[in-house]
């Protein structure tokens, strides 16, 4: 769906994106992660032909970008950083104007009212009144921005920080909406620094750090069992003594044990008369994975003037 090869963007002497080989497959729910300033937004803007690459290639839906932007962009719905709308017009009028600005001619005009209504319904703004967008709350604006991405019934959604400004309920609504669209065949590509958001929604992740794509894999593969079992026990000392040599790490009542089968380990501990309050196969969290491959981020300025 999206393939880039050695994609690079330089602003003067600063390299914002450095030789990125992105591979988003059809039907993916792809999460692009990375600290602030790692180049997520620049990368997203290059995919949408807003920013022109210094070198490298971009294919979206099999077509070279930005040369074929005119054919590709109508099938993409996008949310780029904050949503934006004309503040003195209502949400509905904004969507209608934005839709009318795009290609499509008469067919688009005939279905416009219906599509705008559907998009508002999808994002939970169906009952919105005629008040101007300047009176909207942050969450309503974010929902309106999502609706704007949906009015053309896109095959690919490119969302930059879609969860910004949404309350917990809004984030859950967003997750359900995106999952639903994805099941209906829409490929979802989103960038975020909210790990939990990505972890719960995405099937595939890429991690940007200082402009480089340092990791790209299926989430399931990344979170595959590590061959460790986590054990919580009030009898930590005895467990450690019993399993001597198998304990990887110990932190108070929490132990990490090298073992293939949590159930068998549990049986053995209980058989030895030791109490177990929690036990299960250990998985790395997305946070651990991301932190292990990324640096400090560009908004962290160390005291030693190291960059």
């Amino acid at each position, binding site marked *: 769906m999206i393939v880039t090869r050695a994609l690079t963007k330089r602003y003067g002497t600063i390299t914002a994106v450095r030789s990125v080989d992105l591979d988003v497959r059809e039907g993916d729910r792809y999460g692009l992660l990375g600290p602030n300033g790692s180049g997520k937004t620049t990368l997203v*803007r290059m995919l*949408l*032909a*807003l*920013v*022109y690459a210094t070198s490298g290639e971009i294919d979206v839906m099999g077509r070279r970008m930005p040369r074929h*932007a*005119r054919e590709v*962009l*109508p099938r*993409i719905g*996008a949310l*780029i*950083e*904050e*949503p*934006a*709308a*004309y*503040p*003195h*017009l209502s949400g509905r*009028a904004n969507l209608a*104007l*934005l*839709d*009318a*600005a*795009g*290609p499509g001619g008469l067919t688009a005009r005939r279905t416009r009212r219906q599509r705008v209504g559907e998009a508002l319904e999808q994002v939970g703004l169906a009952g919105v009144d005629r008040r101007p967008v300047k009176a909207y709350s942050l969450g309503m604006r974010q929902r309106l921005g999502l609706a*704007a991405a949906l009015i053309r019934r896109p095959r690919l959604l490119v969302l930059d920080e879609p969860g910004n400004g949404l309350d917990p309920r809004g984030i859950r609504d967003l997750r359900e909406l995106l999952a639903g669209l994805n099941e209906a065949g829409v490929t979802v590509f989103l960038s975020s620094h909210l790990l939990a958001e990505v972890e719960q929604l995405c099937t595939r992740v890429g991690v940007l750090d200082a402009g480089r794509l340092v990791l790209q894999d299926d989430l399931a593969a990344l979170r595959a069992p590590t061959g460790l079992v986590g054990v919580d026990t009030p009898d930590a000392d005895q467990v450690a003594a019993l399993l001597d040599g198998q304990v990887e790490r110990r932190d108070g009542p929490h132990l990490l044990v090298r073992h293939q089968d949590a159930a068998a380990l549990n049986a053995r501990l209980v058989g030895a008369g030791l109490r177990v309050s929690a036990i299960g196969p250990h998985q790395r969290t997305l946070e651990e994975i991301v932190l292990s491959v990324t640096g400090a981020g560009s908004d962290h300025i160390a005291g030693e003037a190291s960059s």
Partner: protein
Amino acid sequence: MIGVELVKLLRRPRTWISLVLTCALPFVVAIFIMITHLAPPPGQGSAFLSAVLQNGELYPAAALALVLPVFLPVAVAVVAGDSIAGEAATGTLRYLLVRPVGRTRLLVAKLVSVIVYVLLVVLAVTVTAYATGVFLLGPSQAAAVGQPPGGGGSLPGAGTGLAGQAPTAGQAAGSAVTSLSGTPLSLWQLTERIAGAIAFISVSMLGVAAIALFLSTVTDSALGSALGALAALVASEVLVTLNAATVVQPYLPTRYWLAWIDFFRQPVFWRDIQRGFGIQAVYVVVFLAAAWANFSTKDITA
């Protein structure tokens, strides 16, 4: 896209507020003149104002002369300067471009909307001023507008004190007989000439719009591009009045701004009008080309 831009222009409160304010200035001036019956003496003050007490039908010309130096260029610079930079500042530019709207198409649509705005303002000023003139100051009492025949001193444009009035035009007017100094203008002739003046002023404002539109593609600040265009005009005005800058004067954007007054001479004095059209055409072409070249290759980071 052009339709969308026009809807945005017409549904924006600013459009109508600036329109009303621009029309209000000549109205206020007319009220003062009507109450006091004190028009500026011939040859002083704004062009045509000395004659309007005798002939209210001439008030559109006087009104255009009132709004031309400041009100009109400010309004045009604000609208044109806002066109791209304003979209960038509100963030809507990126959403338009990924809709997608071609960058050239967007620029053309913005230009058309600015042209419509210019025509709207100029026509509104003319129409309201005509109504004001006829109702407040009364229609022409005599075809010869009450001036003694051959009264060359009452030339409307001869001593307006406004920059850009060519000395040659003044001399030419002195030797020619203007409508105001004697030869009667029929209503049809007056209409024709006001139409000519509207066209000339609109094209002059298009020059301003082209500069502002170019700056609008350079910066993401609508205020910056509007003020930049106004700064260019002020600089041009300063140089126009500076004798030491004679060399560059024929090429300054405001040099022939007041040449439309020549439409009201009898016969029409074409030299400066033609040069005015010419120089504005050059400014429009150059700055629009620069705007296009810049905008179509620009990284949109706003």
